[in-house]
């Protein structure tokens, strides 16, 4: 891997509630190389958005980063002052969120929304330079420069999402965090926005963390991906081997419950729901939903182990990089497939 741009080490984010701490992120570590596209996939409530907010240092009470390091280009973001962190946001690490339609100010023209970021970062630009910058920025996200004169309500959802990508890249950040950037858009526009994101990412050589629950988007966009379950990273690997042969039972469930265009009626439903983060199961957090679970899974917590080149997974049944399944379960799975 190339030089790491982002290193997240043993990140723990807890929310203090009257019923005890909610462990939204519980010991997550991953590394991003320069210009790399990394996907984080998980169900709602798995903690993936909390990871995004932690990297931006936007966790608010009762939430708290209780442990861990977040190194951006070697510098620990958690040790910065609030003002230093404010300077890093947008300039070095930018966030594109799900609700683009809501993140723009409805009474301000697109031009002012983009130049706002430049101004608040004290970029010394005169009026003409700002104009030139915006005229350069909008075509990069596939919009015409005239969009600068428009108000958000004059734009479609896809155009608004591109404006927020334009804002995100306006200071050429090294890292872009895209949290479900297309989940409010339909499939044709989604594709255009994702391709826009990939184009600007490549043009800037920025790294991207794509957060979402759509396996299809991950397969199309990411180089590597990590699977989050109940606040923990349970599997990580390059996209191709991951889809070809998911190792963790939860990843297998995600891949097998995909609806595809291959065989009609051949979709399996995932049983059960993610656990309450207030009351996590003992041992492996996934054991109540796991069809392979053995007695030991109820007691012993698995650790993330390396199971191949660039591939990690946490499951007690993994031995020498192979999932040791009970023969009966293996047969059952084959029958289902």
């Amino acid at each position, binding site marked *: 891997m190339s030089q790491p741009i982002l290193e997240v080490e043993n990140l723990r984010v807890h929310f203090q509630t009257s019923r005890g701490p909610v462990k939204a992120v519980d010991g997550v570590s991953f590394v991003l190389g320069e210009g790399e596209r990394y996907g984080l996939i998980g169900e709602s409530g798995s903690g993936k958005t909390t990871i995004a907010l932690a990297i931006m240092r936007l966790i608010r009470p009762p939430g708290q980063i209780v442990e861990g390091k977040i190194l951006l280009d070697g510098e620990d973001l958690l040790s910065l002052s609030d003002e230093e962190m404010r300077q890093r946001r947008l300039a070095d690490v930018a966030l594109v969120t799900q609700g683009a339609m809501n993140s723009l100010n409805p009474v301000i023209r697109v031009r002012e929304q983009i130049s706002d970021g430049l101004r608040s970062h004290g970029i010394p630009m005169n009026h003409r330079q700002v104009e030139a910058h915006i005229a350069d920025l909008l075509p990069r996200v596939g919009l015409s420069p005239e969009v600068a004169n428009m108000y958000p309500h004059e734009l479609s959802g896809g155009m608004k999402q591109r404006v927020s990508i334009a804002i995100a890249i306006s200071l050429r950040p090294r890292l872009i965090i895209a949290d479900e950037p297309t989940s409010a858009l339909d*499939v044709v526009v989604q594709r255009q926005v*994702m391709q826009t994101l990939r184009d600007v990412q490549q043009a800037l050589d920025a790294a991207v963390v794509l957060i979402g629950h759509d396996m299809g988007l991950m397969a*199309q966009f990411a180089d590597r991906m990590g699977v989050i379950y109940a606040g923990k990273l349970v599997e990580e690997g390059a996209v191709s081997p991951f889809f070809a042969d998911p190792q963790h039972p939860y990843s297998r469930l995600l891949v097998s*419950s*995909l609806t*595809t265009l291959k065989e009609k009626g051949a979709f399996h439903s995932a049983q059960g729901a993610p656990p309450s983060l207030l009351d996590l199961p003992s041992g492996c957090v996934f054991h109540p939903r796991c069809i392979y679970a053995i007695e030991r899974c109820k007691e012993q917590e698995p650790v993330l182990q390396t199971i191949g080149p660039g591939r990690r997974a946490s499951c007690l049944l993994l031995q020498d990089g192979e999932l040791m399944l009970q023969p009966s379960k293996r047969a059952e799975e084959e029958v289902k497939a």
Partner: protein
Amino acid sequence: MTVLLEARNVTKIFRSGLITKKETVALEDFSLTIDPEQPSIMAVVGESGSGKTTMARLLLGLEAPTEGEVFYQGKPLTRLRRAEWLQFRRDVQAVFQDPFEVYNTFYRVDHALEVPIQKFRLAESRAQMRRLMEEALDAVGLRPAETLGRYPHQLSGGQRQRIMVARALLLKPKLIIADEPVSMIDASLRATVLENLRNLNERFGISIIYITHDLTTAYQISHNIVVLYRGAVAEVGDVSLVVKEPRHPYTQLLVGSIPLPDPNRPWREQPEPSPLAEEALANVGCKFAARCAHTFAPCLERAPLLYRTDQFRAAACYLHDTYPPLRPEEMERVLIEKLPLYETA
């Protein structure tokens, strides 16, 4: 046998603006009949603004058509007597998109099931009410003991949506209109809700209109599909034909935009719009002409009819005008009647 529900040449136009009048044609000359003797699952797909939800609201009687009429058992919805209206409200049920908003957060989920039982006087005693609720929950694969008595926030989106399917089922409807029932549910839990809908069709003979923007789930559970583009039917017919070998350029664009969960099958390049596409006018000619790679002179002048390219499929596109044309109200001729959804293994 009268048909249950029929939309005949229905058009819905929304008008807005006080000074500059603006008209939006949400649905144009749409016809469909639901025959309870042939219960099938029909998917209605299209992007936002394609008229999917308007169609659902018209069929549910929540919206009155600008032109044309919706008939329930042969009678226009606008002229139903009170008793007939009540029967319509039982026979035609809806499942909506948001599994959060439909619940009152202060009540246990039981409340959502009790209300229809009380309103329609389905039960004579508490015990019977309880039994009905349990049966309905069983039918959607939820354990009553683990579901009843809970508050909405204690259940996952998938579970909440399955309760909504159970609620619809309580009334023994003949048609369920499900408007984006799984778009707000986690991908891994979607299949459970879709399986419920499929079971209702197969076990109870309930017709289902499944409205979605997701072609893969439409393909998985339905028999027929209608592709809408800006209020007009672009392509219609057997779901396998339409999704596997789309004939209309818009359907081709939709199918080509699906992010396949397979890194080895990347998105294919989409064709550029034809040079003539720029000349397309908003409400003249084919609605897709402004984005289409094949736009040629006829597309700019008059909207194409549906051409029956196969026995079970028609496409509204001049590329196929050598095939026999269908009038909008003849669209149904290409729908497959209830066929076994899945070849039994």
